[in-house]
């Protein structure tokens, strides 16, 4: 096993699965192109092949040197990762990773105008802010910046949601913006 540990093997296994999936799916578009003999699958397969070699090289390196960083490599961060053995820390981190994804998933049905204040407040709370007054004030400030810059000044088309009453709320915001624009 050399200096290999379980996390090295799991990491290599995940990458090998990705390589296998991408190689497997390359048969879906393995069609010849009249003007190019390597076809549509040629380049992706070369990339997949090189990635396989790099995974093996990485595994060999880890077999010899474990997780040590290689000398002469520039710009790599040597900071230690946080210990997630404490469940509370782990759950907090999972929440930070999950909340933005839920927000993105809600954009279509709920729209950004309604969901944004909740998202802003929750992120602040997850980042450790517990003073409710600060959360309310900063949420309002960010929301006003967001509306002012993207709606009033730039008129950017943003997701409005497609379910009631969220869609109606977005429509009300847009109507208010139109009235505001009409003032000048």
């Amino acid at each position, binding site marked *: 096993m050399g200096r290999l540990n379980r996390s090295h093997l799991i990491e290599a296994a995940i990458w090998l699965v990705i390589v296998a999936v991408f190689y497997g799916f390359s048969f879906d578009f393995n069609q010849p*192109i009249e003007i190019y003999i390597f076809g549509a699958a040629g380049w992706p397969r070369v990339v*997949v092949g090189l990635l396989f070699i790099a995974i093996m090289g990485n595994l060999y390196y880890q077999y010899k*040197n474990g997780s040590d960083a290689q000398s002469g490599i*520039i710009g790599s961060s040597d900071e230690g990762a*946080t210990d997630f053995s404490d469940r509370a820390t782990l759950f907090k981190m999972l929440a930070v990773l999950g909340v933005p994804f839920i927000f993105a998933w809600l954009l279509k049905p709920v729209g950004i105008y309604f969901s944004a204040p909740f998202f802003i407040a929750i992120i602040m709370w997850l980042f450790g802010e517990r003073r409710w007054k600060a959360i309310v004030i900063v949420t309002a400030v960010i929301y006003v910046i967001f509306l002012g810059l993207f709606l009033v000044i730039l008129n950017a088309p943003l997701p409005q949601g497609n379910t009631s009453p969220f869609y109606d709320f977005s429509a009300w915001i847009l109507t208010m913006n139109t009235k505001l624009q009409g003032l000048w």
Partner: protein
Amino acid sequence: MIENFLAGSAALFGDPLTIAIFVFGVIGGMLFGAIPGVSMLTLAAILLPFTAGLTATQGVMLFAVIYCTGTYGGAITAILFNIPGSPENAPTSFDGYPMTQQGRSGKAVGAAVLCSAVGGIASALVMMAATEPLAKWAIRNIGPPEIFALVFFGLAVASSVGARTIWKGWMSVLIGLLIATIGQDPVGGINRYNFGIGDLAAGIAFVPAILGFFAVSEIFVQAERKAGGTYKAPKVSMSFPSFLELWMHKIAVLRSILVGFFCGILPGIGATLAAFMSYGEAVRWSKDKDSFGRGNMEGVISSETANNAATGAAMIPLLALGLPGGALTAMMVAVFQMHDLEPGPLVFYNSPDLIWVVFAAMFYANLSILIIGVVETKTILNLLKIPFQFLAPLILMLATIGAYISRGLVLDVMVMFLAGIFGYLLRRSGFSIPGIVLGLILGKIGEQNFAQGMQMVHYDLGTYFSRPICALLIAAGTLTLLASIYRAFAPGKTKA
């Protein structure tokens, strides 16, 4: 040339509306470049329809000014928060962010201000003096094989920067290349890896991917530190670098101008590769290689000089040949077309006034970086005093909107957050995020030029080596690759 430049300057500053547009472009470019989540491309895309109401000269000038100042603006967030405003500022964060953590943010931002201005001004001067001959040289000597070779060299450099080992460096670059294969293939238009999702046929858009990998993953990294109790607020420092400190890096500045200019002149390559290659060359020629990535000011200087030097050079193929080198220059073609003009050799004869107003505006825009940059830096550095729990939701909101408005797809927001999670996990495992992003950006360009090159040389790979520039670039890329592999197997190769 001097007469033309003075005439261009007089036309630029002789009309109040043109002055107002110039000032708007300078400030707008800096602001949009510096706000994580939006970029100079966002501003340009929003402004494009409005340029129909301007004259052709004003429209093209506005975009040229945004290009210059927007490229500088992204350095600020790269240095202060490790969030590059755009990909060309990614190498700036390698040393700029460690400088901030060491309480030297003023010096890093000061170096970025000065070197962006120097690189941009030098590039603008060369552009004024030699646009036509350089464009002719480029069209005779640079073809798809050379562009492919440069992509290879750039990726070889990127693989040795930012990851924990050379293998992870190459894996990072290859992951980026693999992501770039999603969508239609650039030769036959055949759908690849869209997994039944119709919107994926257009591929993974750069903007959400870049926002996810850089901005969102950095938020997650800071969240981890907050959760683990290891978060340290960056120290604010207002001390600028002294003239002597900057003078010590004069060779690096000159080298970066050359690298930036060479990359900028090539269609499709541009400022991002220029910054990476310049950073790589700074490391290669340094006597103290290990100090890079730990707050060496030369890293900031090399990257920022080169990316701004590329902006003037990128105008050469556009104006002299009508070939846009990137997204922003492509939008400039649209501005030309809105006014019934075609960029290319005839523009020099039909609209010399336009050309010289644009040249003069780019010169003054780079000068403005120096003047406004020094003044605004002290204000911008105060951003570091804002607690991160207030900054994080603002950055995430801006990133969400930035990802959405480029194509109007919620899928892009999903892609951004997925890239953020993926980027966070990869950073924990020692992979290089800039490597992935460069692979993603150069993947399609590399494949397209490889395919065109192979068709051109009738699939005889040996012909690549009979073209001097191509052979030189492939040799340089191979040497870079072999040197890093040698380091991987040489004695004393690890650091615990």
